[in-house]
């Protein structure tokens, strides 16, 4: 097996173009399974729900929000680390970012798309969803700009646009590189995608400038997106949701689950796209450190939340807290604490951080825990509000669970298509980390040894 420093520039091009062009039956089988699951578990139940009404899901009075919204926050959260992390690392010149950022950004994009689908699934009459967009009309009817949901529409649209431009712009040189090595329809496609990139100094200069500019722009945007998502909840007066800590809570949670998501994706890419020598222990080590830090912040905020409820001495807040800790959903709460606060403490060990399979298991566990967190935000608080006579219990229906599974499959489908169109490891930026043909060792090597 080659070591990272042995890779030649030509190898990079070859490896990555190979990942696009050479497609084995294993890929097709995987893609077919993903597509089938998407159709069977996402679209069929959804169409049934469109026909029957939201009643196909388990929501009720008073828990009118359910897993669809939890999934929405989850996917938005998962979207966070990609572009945000990529931007932060780009600005701070972290070399280790370069092999992984492309797929991380793709993750952002696709989880945002899936999140947008979850909105469609969530609303009662998705065929009128365009009413939430501000467009001029004869009636002078506008959406309600005071609504946090409206902020959401704006923030997510902006974030999706920003992220799409960011990933696309970063890929242009790679498209050009691939364009020059492919034939047939692929060539034509990359001709269009590469926008006539020639690799002149001016082009590189402008790309670098624009790329950094966008990176700076996207960081506050990303932070704002999840802050705004949190406002959907925090701006309500539901006990245990109406809290000032919600914005940072959501942002940290988002980055946390997103980073864990990156670990999962890295593992899969490394294993199945043969990128072993691009995605190395270094990445896992660094991501592991990041995860540990995030898990500690996340735990801290959770503790703060408990104390906020406890110190409020308010019947409604206290009951919400009691219900979350010891009520019907308590097993889920403690599962979340185990997966997201206790288990990540293993990351203190470097040996753990640099072992691939344990990292994969942990990253998946964290995301299960984080999904649970989102579910609990919706489930525990809405079922225990101000009027005890209106308390209720919400249990997701089969349709909801199926759509959750289907949404994961949809994400996988999108990702599988992505890896065959986009060079999933940045060709030009990886080259920057390699020893130039005639020069000595790079920064990268210094950092790793």
């Amino acid at each position, binding site marked *: 097996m080659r070591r990272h420093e042995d890779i030649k520039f030509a190898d990079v091009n070859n490896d990555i173009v190979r990942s696009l062009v050479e497609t084995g039956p294993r890929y097709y089988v995987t893609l077919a399974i993903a597509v089938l699951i998407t159709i069977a578990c996402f679209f069929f139940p959804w169409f049934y729900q469109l026909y029957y009404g939201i009643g196909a899901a388990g929501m009720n009075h008073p828990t009118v929000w359910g897993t669809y919204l939890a999934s929405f926050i989850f996917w938005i959260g998962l979207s966070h680390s990609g572009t945000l992390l990529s931007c932060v690392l780009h600005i701070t010149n972290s070399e280790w970012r370069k092999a992984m950022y492309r797929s991380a950004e793709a993750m952002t994009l696709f989880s945002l798309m899936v999140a947008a689908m979850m909105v469609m699934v969530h609303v009662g009459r998705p065929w009128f969803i365009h009413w939430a967009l501000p467009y001029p*009309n*004869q*009636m*002078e009817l506008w959406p309600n700009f005071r609504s946090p949901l409206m902020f959401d529409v704006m923030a997510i649209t902006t974030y999706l646009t920003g992220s799409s431009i960011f990933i696309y712009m970063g890929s242009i040189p790679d498209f*050009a590189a691939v364009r*020059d090595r492919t034939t047939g*329809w692929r*060539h*034509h496609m990359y*001709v*269009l995608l590469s926008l*006539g*990139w*020639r690799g002149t100094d001016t082009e590189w200069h402008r790309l670098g400038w624009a790329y950094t500019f966008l990176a700076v722009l996207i960081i506050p945007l990303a932070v704002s997106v999840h802050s705004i998502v949190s406002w959907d909840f925090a701006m309500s007066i539901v006990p245990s949701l109406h809290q000032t800590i919600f914005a940072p809570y959501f942002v940290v949670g988002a980055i946390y689950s997103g980073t864990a998501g990156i670990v999962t994706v890295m593992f899969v890419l490394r294993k199945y796209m043969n990128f072993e020598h691009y995605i190395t222990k270094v990445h896992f080590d660094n991501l592991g450190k990041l995860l540990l830090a995030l898990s500690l912040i996340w735990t801290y905020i959770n503790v703060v939340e408990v104390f906020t409820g406890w110190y409020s001495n308010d019947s409604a807040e206290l009951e919400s807290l009691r219900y979350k800790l010891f009520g019907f959903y308590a097993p889920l709460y403690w599962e979340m604490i185990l997966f997201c606060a206790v288990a990540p403490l293993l990351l203190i060990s470097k040996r753990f951080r640099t072992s691939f399979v344990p990292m994969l298991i942990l990253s998946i566990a964290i995301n299960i825990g984080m999904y649970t967190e989102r579910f609990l935000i919706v489930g525990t608080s809405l079922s225990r509000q101000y009027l005890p006579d209106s308390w209720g219990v919400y249990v997701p229906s089969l349709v909801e669970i199926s759509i959750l599974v289907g949404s994961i499959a949809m994400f996988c489908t999108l990702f599988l298509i992505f890896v065959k169109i986009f060079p999933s490891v940045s060709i030009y930026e990886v080259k920057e980390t390699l020893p130039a043909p005639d020069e000595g060792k790079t920064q990268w090597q210094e950092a790793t040894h």
Partner: protein
Amino acid sequence: MGVSIVPTLRVLKPAAMMVAVGFVGLLIGYFANAAFFPGTTPVQPIEFSHAVHAGDYEIPCLYCHTEARRSPSAGVPSVNKCMGCHAIVATDSPLIREVARYYENNEPIPWVKIHDLPDFVHFPHKRHVAAGLECQECHGPVETMDRVTRMAPNEMGQCLTCHRDSEVEHGIDCLTCHK
């Protein structure tokens, strides 16, 4: 091979043309349907001519559609009302004989509704008649039509425009019209 986009465009041209032609077809189909099968001029069970009654003979609208003055719904005249005149007038006409047949059988005439508002709209004819609106402002020049056709879409924009222009009190409050 190269940077040039021209070969690619050449490849794409047939597909692009198909999309373009398909889209043009869509527009033609959409508007052709609206133009040739508008559904705004349905055939009525009896070829009643408003042009004759309201136009030539200048019978006021509210003579037959009396309810418009006092009820939310304008109502269509009962067969009884038709026979009020046609027991004497034009009794030989084949159309009138048909009306008379309905009357003798004590059957209602199943008129086809032309101006149909959705069920969630509250539109009181009474208020609009009381405000001095001419029927024609919404229904078009019915007195010139042999077979009545819907001239305006009777959609929300039309209501709002009028309510704004004529400064109806709270005229653009949703609850004024939506029930």
